[in-house]
């Protein structure tokens, strides 16, 4: 190894250095590295403090968080992403067209994103906050109303929030946002801060432990080889690489769970109006059908996004329908009774006519369900399988998992992305604490705090969500009665409810 290079490296890794010098050095070294072929498998790997595999919401927000905090901004970071990030950089959407992959962001997630300076890069005109939810049992009709201000009328007192302060609750249950809007904002934030080596369009070919060379003993360090032959040694390798995480596989961490035999069918829809309460009083709707919950979540204007959890066969039928019949089916899903829905799924067409007839014989309050779906955005209907997966551990020596790599959850509570943001926030805090205390950010012992905190928090939440799915995935009259009754009882026993809530919120201990 070239002595100049090794001394450079040592200085780079040392905590103290002038940032501008460091950047200059790195640039120099990078060109040097290219010349000497440091990317080639024979050479020593490049040494990084954090290598993040996966450029989704979790991975990008981790990098943005680390870069934006003064304590961790000196860390040497790299991102490996299979796909090109160019579509995120050039994200220039049509005003009336929305991606079908939307997620609800809790005020806590938005607060975090705001704190790391990413939220201001989000195209705000495409984000829709909502202040109320209506959730009801599709079999018994028992309804669950919820609104942030705790007032009676569902949406009373919900503020005009779109330009309001982020993170403070301000009458907001959650923010609906296209995933691409978030990831492009995060990328913009990262590139604004600079200092992250982005390897895009490159796959992880291999992860193996490093070698004991004369300069350093990297036998406990994961060394990643990418498809272009670049090798990176990671003090901390973060798996933000999704449900089939190669990082998790390398770490030998099992991910356990089951498939729900359900798919989440998504679509971007146009409704007959902006919502019963107008643009300022948006509401999210969710109805628990025996096949799974169907949710209509508000987007700006007359647009809404649909997440319909159903069986693969029924989803296939829905996808095969004409746009008119598909819209009719969505309307039916929020209005008609189970036998009607069952029948409507068996016919190959003509749903529109059937639904309009049945609506006249079905008792529902128009203002308690979403406004009529009038159109579906072409090409926006898609589906993905629903799974329950939870990694046995979020950490290993020099490994941390975040987001879907650690857990997949049923989308009925809209928690998937928020859990990932929670992971990132906790991992960032963990790294900051370790850097401040001179601890090696990669060792298992120093990651334990992150692993424990997030595992149990997510575990409780995922358990509740899973049980809710199972509880509502039945038409058995007894179960329907008991679930309606049980919720009523729990609702009245405030102590019990408060206790359950606090557990779900991740508080520790029994009381």
């Amino acid at each position, binding site marked *: 190894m070239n002595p100049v290079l090794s001394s450079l490296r040592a200085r780079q890794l040392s905590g103290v250095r002038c940032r501008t010098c460091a950047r200059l050095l790195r640039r120099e070294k990078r060109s040097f590295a290219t010349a000497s072929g440091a990317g080639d498998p024979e050479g020593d790997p490049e040494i990084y403090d954090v290598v993040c595999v996966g450029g989704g919401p979790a991975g990008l927000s981790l990098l943005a968080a680390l870069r934006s905090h003064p304590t961790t901004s000196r860390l040497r970071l790299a991102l490996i992403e299979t796909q090109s990030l160019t579509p995120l950089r050039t994200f220039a959407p049509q005003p009336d067209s929305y991606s079908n992959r939307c997620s609800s962001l809790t005020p806590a997630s938005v607060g975090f994103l705001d704190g790391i300076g990413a939220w201001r890069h989000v195209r705000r005109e495409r984000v829709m906050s909502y202040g109320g939810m209506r959730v009801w049992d599709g079999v018994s009709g028992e309804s669950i109303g919820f609104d942030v201000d705790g007032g009676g009328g569902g949406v009373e007192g919900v503020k005009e929030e779109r330009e309001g302060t982020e993170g403070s609750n301000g009458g907001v249950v959650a923010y609906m946002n296209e995933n691409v809007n978030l990831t492009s904002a995060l990328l913009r934030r990262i590139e604004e801060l600079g200092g992250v080596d982005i390897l895009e369009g490159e796959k992880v070919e291999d992860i193996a432990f490093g070698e004991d060379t004369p300069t350093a003993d*990297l036998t406990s360090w994961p060394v990643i080889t990418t498809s272009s032959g670049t090798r990176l040694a990671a003090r901390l390798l973060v798996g933000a690489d999704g449900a089939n995480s190669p990082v998790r596989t390398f770490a030998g961490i099992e991910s356990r769970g089951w498939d729900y035999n359900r798919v989440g069918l998504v679509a971007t829809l146009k409704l007959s109006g902006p919502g019963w309460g107008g643009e300022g009083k948006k509401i999210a709707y969710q109805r628990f059908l025996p096949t799974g919950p169907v949710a209509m979540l508000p987007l700006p204007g007359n647009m809404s996004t649909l997440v319909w959890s159903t069986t693969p066969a029924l989803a296939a039928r829905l996808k095969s329908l004409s746009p008119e019949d598909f819209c009719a089916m969505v309307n039916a899903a929020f209005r008609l009774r189970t036998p009607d829905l069952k029948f409507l799924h068996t016919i190959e067409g003509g749903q529109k006519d059937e639904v309009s007839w049945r609506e006249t014989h079905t008792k529902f309050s128009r203002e308690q369900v979403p406004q009529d779906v009038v159109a579906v955005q072409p090409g926006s209907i898609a589906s993905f399988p629903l799974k329950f997966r939870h990694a046995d551990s979020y950490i290993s020596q020099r490994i941390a998992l975040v987001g879907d790599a650690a857990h997949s959850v049923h989308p009925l509570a809209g928690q998937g992305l928020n859990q990932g943001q929670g992971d990132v926030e906790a991992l960032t805090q963990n790294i900051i604490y370790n850097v401040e205390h001179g601890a090696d950010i990669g060792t298992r012992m120093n990651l334990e705090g992150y692993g424990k905190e997030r595992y149990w928090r997510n575990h409780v939440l995922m358990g509740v969500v899973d049980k809710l799915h199972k509880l509502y995935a039945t038409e058995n009259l007894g179960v329907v009665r008991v679930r309606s009754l049980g919720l009523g009882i729990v609702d009245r026993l405030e102590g019990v409810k408060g206790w359950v809530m606090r557990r779900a919120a991740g508080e520790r201990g029994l009381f």
Partner: protein
Amino acid sequence: MSSIIPIRGTSLRNFNLLLQTAPRLVNSQFRPHTTSSNPSSVNPIEVSHFNALASTWWDPHGSSRLLHLMNPLRHDFIKRCHATQPTPVAKEGLRYLDIGCGGGIFAESAARLGSTGTVLGIDPTPEVLAVARKHARQDPGLQGKLEYRNMSIEGLPKPTSLNEQYDVLTLFEVIEHITHPADFLDACRDHVKPGGWVILSTIARTWTSWFTTKLMAEDVAGIVPKGTHDWGKYINEEELRAYFLGEQGMRSPPGWNGPQVMGVLYVPGVGWRSVTGSEKVGNYFFGIRRDE
């Protein structure tokens, strides 16, 4: 079963009394000694004991786990001490001397800090130091910032200039293993820069510490290997204070000010916590600044 005595008001009072009188049962560690055949402060029996510990030093679930868990508090305490200075501490280039560095738990962490210039860790036990050196190689970031030497404080050349002195001299869980602590601390003094700090941690000599470190930790629970601690050598905070500030007829090396103390308590399942007043009971940190 017979050992369980119901605690009544009176017995509780008696117990407290015992705790308070305990230190008096043993003479102060700073009693003057006449002959010093051994030029080193190091006790040879202690050295061989730590040899045996070397292999488990970096095992986070081994016998050094409590030390690993305590390490962040060491930094917190140093930060707290620095914060009491009238002049703010330098943001970079700080020099650390870690005496009795062992496997390097503190030395490595100090070397990783952005404000650190260099760290020198010394330890008289060669096997332990070998462990430290081997482990430091696992972090390329430590290269050039961390150095280990197999020696005692007496072996370290006396500094001839300010540049050879240290901003922070640390003695973590060391002083209770030293036979003649006063001589040892005298020797340390020369290595501290004016305005620099001596930071140490140890265990108070009380019935509680006897109960927790000797009986429970070593004999009953076996968390710590037998022979790690010699309760008779434990030093109390007021003894340290008296030594440094020259009170109570202690031999008084001049020039120290601003003593700081922080009692810490290990709560199973939670970890180490700073608890005000607990320095009288068990583990505590002590810091004192050399006059500028």
